[in-house]
């Protein structure tokens, strides 16, 4: 919400409306270790995040939540974002969705800059976000009507809604309202609604976070099954290491906030279809798990555990933030002049 006020700044940094020129003072950022050399990505960049940073205004001045996030995603890739709570994973997703505006840097999808939310970047929200006064069918219908009102006839739309609900195995309860179905079923409807928009990118914000382990496993299997048929480009936020390894082509691991960024990127080269039981004994699978776990619990220990452990880096970070703020104020003043 509040970030809209920064859109002017973003526009200021745009030259031709397609690509962003990163603001001068940002180029002084320390380098982040990045291992983003997936072979796929060199073929074609579908979605690109360039130097994405975002500041949230607080009474004590701007709070930099994300700092210089760079990511290239190829078509049909399944990306997981993993990191500790509060590291800005959701913020990245919201920027791609267009719900937040990056303070500097930007997102380009198929050569077009992302400036506002839109159905080509459908979002599956963590808490399903179904309209409680509409049935499952009507919830999907609202999206389908909006996206296909000019291209599909009424009968086609009905078939398309039913097809998408069948895809998530919700065709048996499609006329039930959200309060009449279980949490897992609501999330299925949420996924159906997003899929029915035929998005270029499917954004999932901890889609299975609020579900019990068994339901989660079911939905992960459903998602893999759907992914085999549709081959969508997906960015999924997760807390669950197993989920990330099982589902993803690449896992993007984020450093702790404030001023979070991409820490490491891990390619998961496991053949599909993947079977969770067979993989449980797979050495590569366990190796990938180990990589993610060691990133999360050794390299990026949670701030709370850091403090308990001893040497605290916080003042340095604060100093860094302050420097950057002054730099920004100066650059603003320069712009004004």
């Amino acid at each position: 919400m509040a970030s809209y006020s920064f859109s002017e700044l973003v526009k200021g940094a745009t030259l031709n409306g397609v690509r962003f020129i990163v603001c001068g003072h940002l180029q002084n950022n320390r380098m982040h270790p990045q291992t983003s050399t997936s072979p796929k990505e060199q073929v074609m960049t579908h979605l690109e995040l360039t130097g994405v940073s975002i500041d949230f205004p607080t009474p004590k001045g701007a709070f930099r939540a994300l700092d210089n996030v760079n990511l290239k995603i190829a078509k049909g890739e399944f990306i997981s974002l993993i990191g500790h709570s509060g590291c800005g994973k959701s913020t990245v997703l919201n920027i791609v969705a267009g719900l937040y505006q990056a303070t500097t840097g930007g997102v380009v999808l198929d050569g077009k800059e992302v400036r506002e939310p839109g159905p080509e970047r459908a979002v599956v929200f963590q808490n399903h976000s179904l309209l409680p006064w509409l049935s499952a069918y009507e919830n999907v219908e609202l999206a389908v009507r909006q996206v296909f009102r000019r291209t599909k006839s009424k009968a086609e739309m009905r078939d398309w809604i039913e097809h998408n609900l069948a895809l998530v195995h919700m065709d048996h309860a499609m006329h039930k309202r959200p309060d009449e179905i279980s949490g897992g079923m609501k999330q299925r409807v949420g996924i159906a609604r997003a899929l029915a928009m035929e998005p270029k990118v499917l954004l999932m914000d901890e889609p299975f976070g609020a579900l019990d382990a068994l339901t989660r496993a079911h939905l992960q299997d459903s998602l893999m099954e759907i992914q085999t048929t549709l081959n969508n480009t997906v960015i999924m936020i997760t807390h669950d290491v197993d989920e990330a390894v099982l589902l993803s082509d690449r896992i993007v691991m984020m450093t702790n906030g404030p001023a979070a960024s991409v820490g490491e990127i891990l390619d998961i080269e496991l053949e599909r279809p993947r079977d969770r039981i067979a993989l449980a004994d797979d050495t590569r699978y366990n190796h990938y798990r180990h990589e993610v776990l060691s990133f999360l619990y050794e390299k990026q220990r949670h701030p709370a555990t850091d403090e308990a452990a001893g040497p605290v880096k916080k003042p340095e970070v604060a100093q860094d933030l302050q420097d950057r703020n002054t730099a920004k104020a100066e650059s603003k003043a320069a712009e004004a002049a």
Partner: protein
Amino acid sequence: MSTLNLSGRLPARDELPTLAAGMARTLIVPLMGLLVFLFAWHIAARNIDTSLGQFPGPVQVYEQSVNLIAEHNRERTKEVAFIERQEKRNAEKLAKDPSAEVRIRDYTGKPTFFDQIGTSLVTVMSGFVLASLLAIPIGILIGLNSTLYAALNPLVQLFKPVSPLAWLPLVTMVVSAVYVSDDPLFAKSFLTSLFTVTLCCLWPTLINTAVGVSGISQDLKNVSKVLRLPFLTHVVKIAIPASLPAMFTGLRLSLGIAWMVLIAAEMLAQNPGLGKFVWDEFQNGSSDSLGRIMVAVLVIGLIGFLLDRAMLALQKAISWDKNAVLR
């Protein structure tokens, strides 16, 4: 709540105690309360002497309500007789001279208590509907747009506490000045009461609708943004259903206020209705007057209660959340 057996089957032996308990709660306890009240009223009334005689107790009030019904019936009989006489006279006139001009006059007898109730109900509903038609759209708009809200909020806060009696002279003068017509569709007194009611009962609906709309969860707003819903679709599919409970809270408060305001307005402005009935009885000052006023008081209370129940029934019929406990 009630365990009254509606299925028509005889209650089983083991159900009887719970049935009795249910009866006690739903019937006997409220009845006891009523009896205690009537007794206290009776005692208190006997000890209050006014210049118009003793304060009416339950018995006198009952007698007066019977009288009012009888008066009403008498008046209706008179009206029927009047119309019959008129028709007969006109028929005779036409028989003598087919080209004769025939006048049909309305019966101009004094409006009875029940006529006044009818007038009041029509006026209150008209004022309330007009207020809702204004308040709901404005409430939705200022709920959706914080700039509009900031612009209108001071006005709302300023006019909300204004008593109907302060508006009344202004409304009367404006209606007399603006509504000039040889063959008026509505009586001026009706319009004066209507606008006074509207001005006073606008606010709860407006404020509650705005609060309801502005309280829509961010998730649903995000859904709307991702879908790029047009403004009108957003209002119809998201804003209105989401704010329906708050809107109804406002509507019920508004209707309650409308009813209270109307009685006061009628009383002060001598507009037809229950308020005028009360005032006329007060001015009349017969020994029955206080009893008749007391009947009016009870009827006003009963109608206010029924209006609220009607709104509740409407809310239950419209509400999407059938699990919500409404009371």
